[in-house]
Structures are given as structure tokens and as C-alpha cells.
């Protein structure tokens, strides 16, 4: 904490946070089929998800040919879905169907942690 203005003394006034920063809740019904259980959440958020994934594509495009990279994602990662345990493979397919986002890109989003740790 020696480098102001980027650091500050320990705060005592941040709580309670503004009400409009509180995140809402979605009920995931595990009794539903895996393909259907996320639809109510991702369908209305599809546009935001697409914008986020497009940002990643744009970033990839800076370093390598974007079209080739995306084709690779679709060709390589979409079939990977079959190797995931249930209910995860069903859920990923359901998200791709509900949002219209290619399955390979949904898989990439879901294994991004493993990709990013390098």
C-alpha cells in the first residue's frame, strides 16, 4: 500500500454496497433435462454472450487468422462435447441450441480456465 493513488487505507465504508450492484438469482432445476435447464437464463442473455465471445474472437484475430482459428475451434472443440461427463455435455448442447452460439464456442467458453492458466 505504498503506491497511492492506486492503493488506499483499509476501507470501512464500502458496506452496504449500492442496491443496484446486487446480482439476481436464477433457479436451476436439476430435475429438468440437462438440455433444458439453462434455457431460461441464457436465451435472454444470448446477445451479451455473443458480444463477449466476439471480443475474444477479435482478440484472437490480432495474433492469428481469425477465420482459421474459429474454424479450428468449431472443428476441434465441438466434437469434444461428446467426451464430457453428463450432465455437462447435455447442458452445453442446450446452451448452444438456446443461444444460437456454435457449440465449439460454447465449449471454448467453458474450458477457458484451462486455456487461460498457461
Amino acid at each position, binding site marked *: *500500500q505504498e503506491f497511492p493513488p492506486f492503493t*488506499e487505507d483499509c476501507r470501512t465504508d464500502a458496506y452496504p454496497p449500492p442496491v443496484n450492484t446486487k446480482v439476481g*438469482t436464477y433457479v436451476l432445476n436439476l*430435475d429438468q433435462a440437462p438440455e433444458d435447464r439453462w434455457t431460461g437464463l441464457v436465451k435472454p442473455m444470448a446477445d451479451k454472450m455473443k458480444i463477449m465471445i466476439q*471480443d475474444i474472437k477479435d*482478440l484472437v484475430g490480432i495474433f492469428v487468422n481469425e477465420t482459421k482459428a474459429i474454424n479450428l475451434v468449431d472443428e476441434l472443440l465441438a466434437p*469434444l462435447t461428446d467426451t464430457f461427463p453428463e450432465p*455437462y455435455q447435455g447442458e452445453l448442447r442446450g446452451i448452444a441450441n438456446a443461444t444460437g452460439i456454435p457449440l465449439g464456442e460454447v465449449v471454448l467458453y467453458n474450458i477457458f*480456465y*484451462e486455456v487461460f492458466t498457461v
Partner: protein
Amino acid sequence: CTSLVAQDKTGDLFHARNLDFGLFLGWDVKNQTWALTERLRPLIINVEYQQGGKTVAKGVHFAGYIGVITGMKPGVLSLSMNERFQLEGGFIGIIEWIIGQRDGQWMGFVLRDAVVKATDFNSTLQYLTSVDLLAPGYIILGGNSSGEGAIITRSVGTKADNVKMLDPAHGTWYLVETNYDNWKNPPFFDDRRAPATKCMNTMSQANVGLKGIFNVLSTKPVRNLLTTYTALMHVRNGTLDTYLQYCPQPCFPW
């Protein structure tokens, strides 16, 4: 990321975390923000896992991401995962998976299984210490009884490099984990551990609670330009509250 588990003087446990993500994934020059961080924030949602009409677990998700990196089982345990950077990290795990060597498991799926199926702190600790993983990570676990808190430092495969336990009887009433091995010094250019530690000590065990911990996690540079949300978990009450976090300039980029 910064995760905290703290025990108050009555033995009650609180678990909280900042999720920081998007480093080097696009810089918005005009707004001086990380592009991906800004894109992720509107996707954050609390998810209540229900089975037979009953809540069996809770998690914080990005819409479309089905794994768990922050979650709790009310009355049983809470967990969070912080990223651990290693050259032999998840990338090799992915390649192995693609070529058919599929002994390891995906972090988000493992943690979701762990939290949804959890029966108690100790068995979950044991499981997460030895489960075969495709990527390294720091798994922070909190329970429901005094002393139930741990930082599991995981490598790829079945190896746990270190398990640090809460030990209130000997003065360790809280645990702090950022993105570096907790038995080594963090790098000078990214030390969020020292400010978090200082603020926890300033707060003191007498003031442990959601308010105090939120204040610690909201202090710069613990809160920084990568911080998307702060989640506050109280296992005994079964509450998981998540708040979007912003860091107005001047703010450290990570």
C-alpha cells in the same frame, strides 16, 4: 482473485471472494478498462441448484458457463477457486484430453460436483486434495464448524503441493489467498496479499462478518480493474450474496 475464509470469536465462518478476470484480454484505451472484464460483468448471476423443490447448492456463474468457481452448500461448506499460473498448466491438459488421455477432470465441473454432492467438510477436503485435475489452481474451502477452512494448492494431476488449514487455536483465524503460492512472497508488481492481510488484521477477529470482509475486499488494490464481483458466503445461514464491483480510476490495472 482474492479469497478469504475467516472465523469470528463464536466459531462462525465467513467465506468471501473477489473474482478478477480479463488480464491482457483487450484494453479499452478510451475508458481505461479491461475489455473482457467489462463484457463479463453483465453476465454474472447467482444460481440456486434445486432438486425435488429443495435448494441443494448455490453458485455464482457467468451466464453460459456451467462450472462452479464460487459456490456453497448451505449448512455444509463453501468454496472458491483462484487461478494458479503454471507453464505446465491447463493447456497441456487440454491437448492430452483431445488426444484421448482423459484421466484428468475439468476444474469447473469438479468443483460443481464437489459442492452439489458435498456431505461434509473433511470428505470434500480429501476429495479436492487428490482428484485428478487438468489444470492447477488454488481451492479455498470453508466449512460450518470452528477450524474448518483450508487453502488447497493444486497442481495438474493428483498432486496437492500444499494444504494450509485454518487454526484459530493458534491465532490463524483467517486465510487469505490471491494468485500465488501462500508459502512464498508474491511478486512485487502484484501484491494483493499484503494489503488484504493488513486490512484483516486492522478489522480484527472481533469484527469478522460480512460487512468487515466486504470492506477488506473493496479496498484497492485488492479491488482492482479486473475485479468483476465480490461474493459473500455464510454457510451457517445459507446465504450467498454477490455484488458487481467497479474500480473507478485511479485504480491499479490488476
